[in-house]
């Protein structure tokens, strides 16, 4: 009974952390981009503008829950729910610290890959159901991009699996006690970082929702809370990518003992999220064919060579 209660607190706390963390991230990102671009960003509501998220939430909740008459009703409503569900479900396997984490699956890494591969449906169904040209183009781009970047996202992680000999994320963290995997698997780390940004379709991989050419891409017809689900899902996926990199390459919760393990996990994740925001502020958007060519002609061979080299070194 006692363990069940602790587990329940664990689940609720992590869920709240993920959703509110993602909401806070929308403000952090706008503020940081503002500073880097020599302007203020949202600074009116509350201290330093930190209550901006509350204002945004009230506005989105007050909006009419509207489905366009030409839309495919069922699919239109299901799509944003998928977007939110898959990223939150993927968070369940992430071990934050000893004893903190929702579930300890033996196939944890595969579960994460499965959930990210289901994430494509949110974009595709949203685009299809909207029955809108911009949305359709955005959806097609998103599907092609996510399917191709997923291929080497999985391959880049297999090097880590080979070194640790497990798909269990807790065992993967503990295998890094002697040294973080970022050193022997630096190529894998770089590939996964790029693929992670592409999976959460953020700049420079935000072609599915490129504002200047596609209005808002796949979520052109969405408004109110349904739009908020897509929007928040994207930020949760940023958090998830950062947390996953922390677990797989940066030693998870491991760190000097003078601070609690959870602190180290959160510190590493936060630094990764900030670097992802900085990348958004620094890089331009490539052309669509450049993006696909980069994926198939550079990243995929690199991932395969990395896998081959890791296997050879492991055998020796």
């Amino acid at each position, binding site marked *: 009974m006692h363990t069940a209660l602790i587990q329940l607190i664990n689940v609720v706390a992590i869920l709240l952390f993920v959703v509110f963390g993602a909401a806070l991230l929308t403000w952090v990102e706008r503020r940081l981009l503002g500073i880097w671009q020599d302007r203020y960003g949202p600074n009116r509501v509350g201290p330093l503008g930190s209550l901006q998220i509350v204002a945004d939430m009230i506005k989105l909740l007050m909006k009419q829950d509207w489905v366009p008459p030409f839309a*495919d009703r*069922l*699919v239109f409503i299901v799509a944003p729910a998928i977007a939110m569900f898959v990223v939150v479900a993927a968070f369940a396997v992430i071990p934050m610290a000893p004893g903190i984490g929702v579930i300890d699956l033996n196939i944890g890494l*595969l579960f994460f890959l*499965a959930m990210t*591969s289901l994430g494509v449906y949110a974009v*595709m169904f949203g685009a299809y159901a909207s029955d809108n040209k911009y949305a359709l183009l955005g959806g*097609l781009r998103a599907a092609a991009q996510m399917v191709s970047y997923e291929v080497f996202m999985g391959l880049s992680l297999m090097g880590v699996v080979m070194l640790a000999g497990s798909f269990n994320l807790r065992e993967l963290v503990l295998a890094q006690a002697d040294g973080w995997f970022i050193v022997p698997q630096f190529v894998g780390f770089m590939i996964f970082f790029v693929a992670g940004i592409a999976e959460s379709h953020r700049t420079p991989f935000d072609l599915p929702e490129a504002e200047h050419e596609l209005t808002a891409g796949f979520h052109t017809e969405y408004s109110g809370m349904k739009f908020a689900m897509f929007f928040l899902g994207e930020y949760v996926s940023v958090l998830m990518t950062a947390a996953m990199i922390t677990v797989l390459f940066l030693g998870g919760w491991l760190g000097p003992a003078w601070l609690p393990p959870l602190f180290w996990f959160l510190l590493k994740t936060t630094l990764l999220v900030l670097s992802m925001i900085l990348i958004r502020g620094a890089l331009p958007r490539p052309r669509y064919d450049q993006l696909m060519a980069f994926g198939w002609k550079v990243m995929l061979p690199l991932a395969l060579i990395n896998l081959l080299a890791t296997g050879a070194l492991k055998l020796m």
Partner: protein
Amino acid sequence: MMWSSLYSLIFYVSGAVTLLATLLLITRHNAVHALLYLIVSSLSMAVIFYLLGAAFAAAMEVIVYAGAVMILFVFVVMMLNQGQRSAAHEAAWLPARGWLMPGILTAILLVLLVSSLMMGVVPQTVHEVTVKQVGTALFGPYMLVVELASFLLLSGLIGAFHIARKMPQNSEQS
């Protein structure tokens, strides 16, 4: 006791969801809705795999079938832009009379299946199959099958490459 009854409950619920989703998949006229049910069906199948101890097969069912193959299906259907008109076409192609013969044949198969299941002994114990065991089996006793499958995939790849190839001499003539 409590765990085993919960286990059976999850098993029967996901089994029922699989059957219902597959039935709806066949009867829908809208292609995207049908694909949606196909995805639900393969997801609930993954739950059944997981319950039977095949965790790796469950993950592969989601990653490969639901996460890659079905996406390509949806991709193509989305580009065809099927609306109300094509749904009406579909409805016209599938009259109630067309169900008669396949229904009878399937009923015979069902009787055979159920009777063979009643006679055979169904194993009761569930033990988890680890990823390592799957790998050892694939690259041990089933090596030849894996190689054959890779031939098949390679020939598919070459075929796709050939079809998509640009023909320079043809484009110059036209």
